[in-house]
């Protein structure tokens, strides 16, 4: 257990659950019958080599990819692709993308305020002050009135995290949040994520940052070829893996 994270009882309730998920792209089975539990207040890190299906698994959790088989449950209730429950899931599960995907035609604070104003129907003034609060939380108070194109990659990703937080999500999904950043900018994004984790945010993180996973996550899931090869605490999976494939990956 990481020393700086709050003590979470191991039986904390399941926020987001995948049951026997399958996703195929043509002849390729990207996700091959995976079950996964993301527990409330905990950080689940999903690691594995490129092409192992990590991102597809994460995207299936909020139906950016519609699974071919299996079930996704949000707070115990099953979610289907065309369903009122899907909008409920999406407005309560934030997503952070590898390419940030900020809206280039809006100012930074407008990016953050858009969903609260449109989807949650907050009054414009409240959405605006919420956006400014969240931006100062990720250290971007002075960039609120900038355009996204004027920000560095690390700043853009922190703005994207603020945007995801604006819907007051019950869980956050991170899809390789630092893979498009150079090493100097990776740190500022990881420290924002570490702060979120220590505040008890429920997070599922697909990442290549092994040291981040070791320091912050409560559970590590190691994937290869669409399957979960090994799972457990970070020290079990990363430092003393039992599976040969896992050992080879972390031996680098």
């Amino acid at each position, binding site marked *: 257990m990481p020393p700086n994270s709050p003590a979470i009882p191991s039986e904390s309730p399941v926020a987001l659950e995948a049951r026997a998920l399958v996703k195929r792209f043509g002849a390729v089975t990207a996700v091959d019958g995976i079950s996964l539990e993301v527990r409330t207040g905990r950080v689940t890190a999903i690691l594995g080599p490129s092409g192992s299906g990590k991102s597809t698994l994460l995207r299936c959790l*909020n139906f*950016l990819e519609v699974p071919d088989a299996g079930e996704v449950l949000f707070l115990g209730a099953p979610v289907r692709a065309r369903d009122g429950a899907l*909008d409920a899931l*999406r*407005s*309560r599960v*934030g*997503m952070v*993308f590898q*390419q940030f*995907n*900020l*809206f*280039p*035609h809006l100012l930074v604070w407008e990016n953050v305020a*858009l*969903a609260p104003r*449109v*989807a949650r129907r907050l009054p414009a003034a409240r959405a605006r002050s919420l956006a400014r609060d969240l931006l100062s939380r990720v250290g971007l108070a002075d960039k609120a009135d900038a*355009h*996204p*194109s004027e920000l560095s990659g690390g700043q853009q990703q922190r703005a*994207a995290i603020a*945007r*995801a937080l604006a*819907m007051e999500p019950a869980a956050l999904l991170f899809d390789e949040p630092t893979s498009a950043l150079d090493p100097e900018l990776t740190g500022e994004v990881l420290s924002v994520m570490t702060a979120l984790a220590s505040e008890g945010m429920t997070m599922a993180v697909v990442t290549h940052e092994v040291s981040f996973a070791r320091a912050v996550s409560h559970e590590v899931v190691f994937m290869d070829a669409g399957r979960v090869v090994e799972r457990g605490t970070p020290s079990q999976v990363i430092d003393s893996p039992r599976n040969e494939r896992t050992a080879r990956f972390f031996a680098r």
Partner: protein
Amino acid sequence: MIGPDGRLTSGNTGRLSRAPWWLLALALGGTVFAWRAMTSQVYADILARILSGLGVTLAVTAVAFPLAIALGLATSLGLVSPHPVRRNVATLYVQVARGVPVLVQIFIVAFVLVPLGVDALRWLGGGALSGLRASDVPMAARVVAALVCAYGAFEAETIRGGLTSLPRGQAEAARALGLSHRQALLHVLLPQTFRRILPTLGNDLISLLKDSSLVSVLGVRDITQEARLYASSTFRYTESLTLLALLYLALTLLLALGVKALEQRYRRHAS
């Protein structure tokens, strides 16, 4: 030319080489012509006559363009719809309207569809509409309807192209935030699409302004019709047609400069 630095227009960036000489040349020619026109009674007469049709030309364009964009927007959403009926209806309309000459469409709308529509209305409306005649529908309105039909198909293709050129991550981010399909379109995708297709829309607007001259075939008195009427009664073809062409040129140049200014404004953050 693509320069050694990979820029589309590179090399001379000096003030002299960037100056819009073409505009200067046109302005010079225009001034000479305007001076001649002002000092000659014939030109003054022709100009006054042609300008009496300016309102019609501008009105036809100003009414038809927004309607064509609205029709194009609705059609483009049909073109990208997963719903097979919507997609096929939209595709059928685009292919037909794009494949028939604008002039032929004007004839068909004016002399086939409008009379048919009036008959249908009379039949549906029973006694209340029995006095309705096809001749009650002004020719200008028929032409506007035809231009909207023709240009709606172009705008549909333009908007569809703009929509599909956006990175997929934009729609994903919008939907992942809990925005509905409609909200994602309205607040995220369409604003970016319109910034991207602005140059094409400008072209289409200029094109529509020129095609508004087709109203003259139905006898609507726009600037083209006034010039033709004047020329045929006085045999002053050279003067009338030159003035007419210059007037169109002035109008389209104004539009082009306006569109360029809008482009400059949006260029930096268009994504």
